[in-house]
């Protein structure tokens, strides 16, 4: 097909502004799938994605659309992950497009995530088409939203498309706008192959399936390709596009979006952002923008049963086949035994991996509280990156410590500005600036320690603004911080997995909160358990879990022996989910206590 008839686009939206529903309607309207084949929100295919209502992996769909001008167009829709953890993946998916639909809920207006993604799209020179969604709702105010788009983003919204993805109003107008406004690709079919990898997934039969956009040249079955970042070479075994199921074809031509497989065993060899070229006729330079995803959040994953260690390793290896941004390495904890220190792109990424390990691999895990990676400068001049609080060096050998900061964008109704600033200040934020988006809404920028975001910043933000605030952030480097390690002792013995790095000024309060929380989480046991928080040798807080006084079946006669046996079995089963640390049995929640304090 002639490049001039190809339109590659993605959809940008804040969570719940209707991206998935709109995608469903476009697919339905173009007849790509029959109504019967349409499952609701077909693009979010992983169970977890549906439950959480977010997209974790990118997806892509090719639709053929006969426009009002009588011509037929090939529309390639590339879906993007909808969470700040996956900003890099979003930027690569956008780089595979020429245009983006900016979907805004006509009852809500612009939110922080909308903005972050718009800027990503502008960075990639995308044509942006404002789409005002949910116009069927009584509280819809499309004119207000249009004005906001013009004022805040600075793009013309006079011919924004009005639609309701839910009812189907305006869907054809959206399609026409795509045809009319998204530029056609302008690659050169005679040049050597250059294709951008914007996602990959592991398939047990095909090996790694790479999602690509052909920029120049063409990608054919049987050709030998090279991954320009890794240098690895493979022979293409399959080429095709998504409908959204895989449909095989002989080649992907210049400007097209699709997939290929090449018996690649590991997604590490097919990283998002890499450039695919012809091994026998390579392009002189790769596409710009490639970087290796770096984990920002770390936690320890330990099997409750030590015997499950090997199973956990196997499961992590399998997940890593499909997720090159997941990193892990073995670690040992005196409290928890053998496990892994795992690095994630963010908290959501961590939760998803954890849930998949438990759900898909049937593991029972203890997760230690997540932490960021600290840069510790020793007095002897050595610098080390510490991703585990228990490896934090003794204060006497530390010159200073730096921790990662993010640039946070918060959008909030103006009545909550005070509350947001108070909270951000409390969270050690550094105020940067504030702009009025309109007469009622404000955009505030703060530099905040990433560790505070992980801790409870977002939850607190949501509650102090009664859910009105939206937040987005990006890493902006390391800054000096006065940090100390708080250790927790149970029964007088330090439990390494419960250590936390906190700001010195907050150490006292956090220590006290933490022991109080642990006291309420640790079930009473046969003996009294002192719970202490300490910095170095100095105990800063103490609580006692009092000894259990009585736990015995009162009554047991001939008729209810079975029932009583089952009761004991159940109680025993419940304890299996606890971790024996020294002589103390700890429930899983204890390890996350630091995150669950009020």
């Amino acid at each position: 097909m002639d490049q001039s008839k190809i339109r590659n686009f993605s959809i940008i939206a804040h969570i719940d502004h209707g991206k998935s529903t709109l995608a469903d309607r476009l697919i339905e309207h173009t007849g790509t799938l029959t109504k019967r084949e349409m499952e609701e929100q077909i693009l979010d295919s992983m169970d977890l994605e549906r439950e959480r209502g977010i997209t974790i992996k990118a997806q892509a769909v090719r639709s053929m659309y006969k426009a009002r001008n009588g011509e037929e167009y090939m529309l390639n829709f590339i879906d993007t992950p909808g969470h700040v953890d996956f900003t890099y993946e979003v930027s690569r998916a956008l780089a595979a497009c020429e245009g983006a639909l900016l979907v805004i809920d006509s009852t809500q207006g612009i939110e922080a995530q909308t903005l972050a993604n718009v800027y990503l799209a502008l960075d990639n020179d995308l044509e942006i088409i404002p789409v005002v969604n949910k116009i069927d709702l009584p509280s819809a105010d499309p004119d207000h939203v249009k004005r906001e788009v013009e004022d805040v983003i600075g793009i013309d919204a006079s011919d924004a498309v009005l639609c309701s993805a839910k009812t189907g109003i305006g869907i054809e107008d959206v399609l026409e706008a795509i045809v009319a406004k998204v530029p056609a690709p302008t690659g050169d079919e005679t040049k050597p192959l250059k294709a951008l990898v914007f996602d990959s997934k592991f398939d047990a039969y095909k090996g790694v399936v790479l999602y690509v956009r052909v920029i120049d040249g063409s990608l054919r079955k049987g050709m030998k390709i090279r991954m320009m970042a890794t240098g690895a070479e493979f022979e293409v075994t399959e080429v095709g596009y998504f409908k959204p199921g895989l449909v095989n074809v002989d080649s992907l031509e210049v400007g097209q979006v699709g997939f290929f497989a090449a018996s690649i065993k590991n997604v590490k060899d097919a990283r998002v952002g890499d450039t695919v070229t012809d091994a026998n006729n390579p392009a002189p330079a790769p596409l710009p923008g490639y970087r290796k995803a770096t984990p920002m959040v770390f936690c320890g994953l330990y099997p409750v049963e030590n015997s499950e260690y090997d199973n956990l390793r196997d499961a992590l290896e399998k997940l890593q086949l499909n997720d090159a941004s997941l990193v892990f390495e073995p670690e040992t904890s005196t409290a928890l035994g053998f496990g892994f220190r795992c690095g994630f792109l963010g908290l959501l990424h961590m939760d998803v991996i954890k849930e998949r390990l438990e759900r898909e691999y049937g593991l029972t895990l203890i997760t230690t509280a997540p932490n960021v990676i600290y840069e510790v400068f020793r007095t002897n001049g050595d610098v080390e990156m510490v991703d585990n609080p228990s490896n934090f060096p003794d204060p006497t050998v530390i010159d200073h410590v730096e921790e990662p900061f993010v640039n946070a964008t918060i959008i909030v109704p103006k009545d909550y500005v005070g509350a947001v600033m108070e909270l951000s200040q409390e969270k050690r934020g550094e105020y940067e600036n504030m702009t009025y988006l309109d007469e009622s809404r404000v955009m505030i920028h703060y530099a905040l320690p990433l560790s505070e975001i992980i801790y409870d910043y977002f939850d607190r933000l949501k509650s102090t603004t009664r859910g009105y605030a939206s937040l987005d952030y990006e890493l902006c480097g390391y800054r000096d911080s006065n940090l100390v390690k708080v250790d927790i002792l149970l029964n007088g013995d330090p439990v390494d997995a419960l250590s936390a790095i906190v700001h010195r000024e907050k150490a006292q309060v956090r220590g006290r909160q933490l022991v109080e929380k642990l006291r309420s989480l640790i079930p009473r046991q046969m003996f009294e358990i002192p719970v202490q928080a300490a910095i170095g040798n100095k105990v800063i807080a103490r609580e006692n879990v009092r000894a259990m006084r009585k736990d015995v079946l009162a009554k047991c006669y001939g008729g209810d022996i079975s029932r009583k046996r089952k009761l004991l079995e159940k109680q025993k089963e419940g304890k299996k989910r606890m971790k024996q640390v020294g002589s103390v049995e700890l429930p899983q929640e204890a390890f996350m206590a630091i995150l669950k304090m009020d």
Partner: protein
Amino acid sequence: MKPYEQIQAIYLHTPFCVQKCLYCDFASYACRDASVMERYTDAVCKEIASGGAVKLPVNPNATIYFGGGTPSTLPVECIAKLVDALKKNKYWQEPAEATIEVNPGTADLAKLKAFRELGFDRISFGVQSLNDTELKTIGRIHTAEEALQAIAWAEEAGFTRINADLIYGLPGQTMESLRKTLEQLVETGIEHISVYGLIVEEGTPLATLINEGKLILPDEDTAADMYELVQNFLKEQGFERYEISNYAKNGQYSKHNLVYWKYEPYAAFGAAACGFDGASRFTANEVVADYLSQTQEAVIYNEENLSNEELLGEFMFMGLRKTSGANLREARERLGIDVMERFASEMEPFFQKEMLRYDSEQELLFLTERGMELGNLIFEIFVTI
């Protein structure tokens, strides 16, 4: 023949009560219809004649226990018919003990005399508390005075072996009220008392009232204080604790219940009644109407075949309830399991904390007093998951 190869006890269930107590989740129904009771009596007689589910020889001294529900709601003629059926079918020969449960609210002197004449030599009263407010709160049909009166009548009727059940941890109960209940009860001179901590069973009206905040239970620590009060008080009064919740003076143990704790076979008759032959448990339908229709043909029992591990678990947690301990020699002979060897590492911390004690000569394993308080932690060792 080994004791565990013979029926050592016979249980007969009456699933009727004047009114169901708020905490009760047993098989019992509020019923005052004499014709239903007569039909039920005939059905049980039929079941007895059929030989029931437990097919083992009957020890001529097997104990008899009429439990419920409230057996004393049945008209005396019905009880007489049931006793007769047991005798005719050689279940009731020369019982070492014959107990009938009586709700004090259903007792009168004539009835108790009749029970004595039928051959019962032991009465178990559901007293629960001697505080009228507490009794009312949990839906008992009698007052404290009626309970004391019933005990007096039982003595007058010629019963020397009398038990009273008590509950501690009741809504509104205090240490003082519990102490007063214990004092008054001991004053009657009865020689057996069973004391249970209240268990709020799911689905009972009591559970609903507590969940809705309409009733408040004593907190965990007060309940533990109450438990200690019961131990200390009864000990001072010369009662021996021979099982976790059972106390007797002058060796007046419940021989029938000891059969359960020794894990010996027992036969059972009536709706919801549960018999045990040493390897399997047989439970009759607990819905009275179904039980009645089934007995026209043959009672269908819900049969639970226990694995060797399950048998061992039950043998242990039942046996350890007695202060006389669990007989590990018998465990080895009956089930082929050497408990000291198999559970050595799990038991070790409990020996260290002096919660378990072992008499290697007699091969008896005991819970110490502290062990009894936290018995479940030890029982869990022996159950399989």
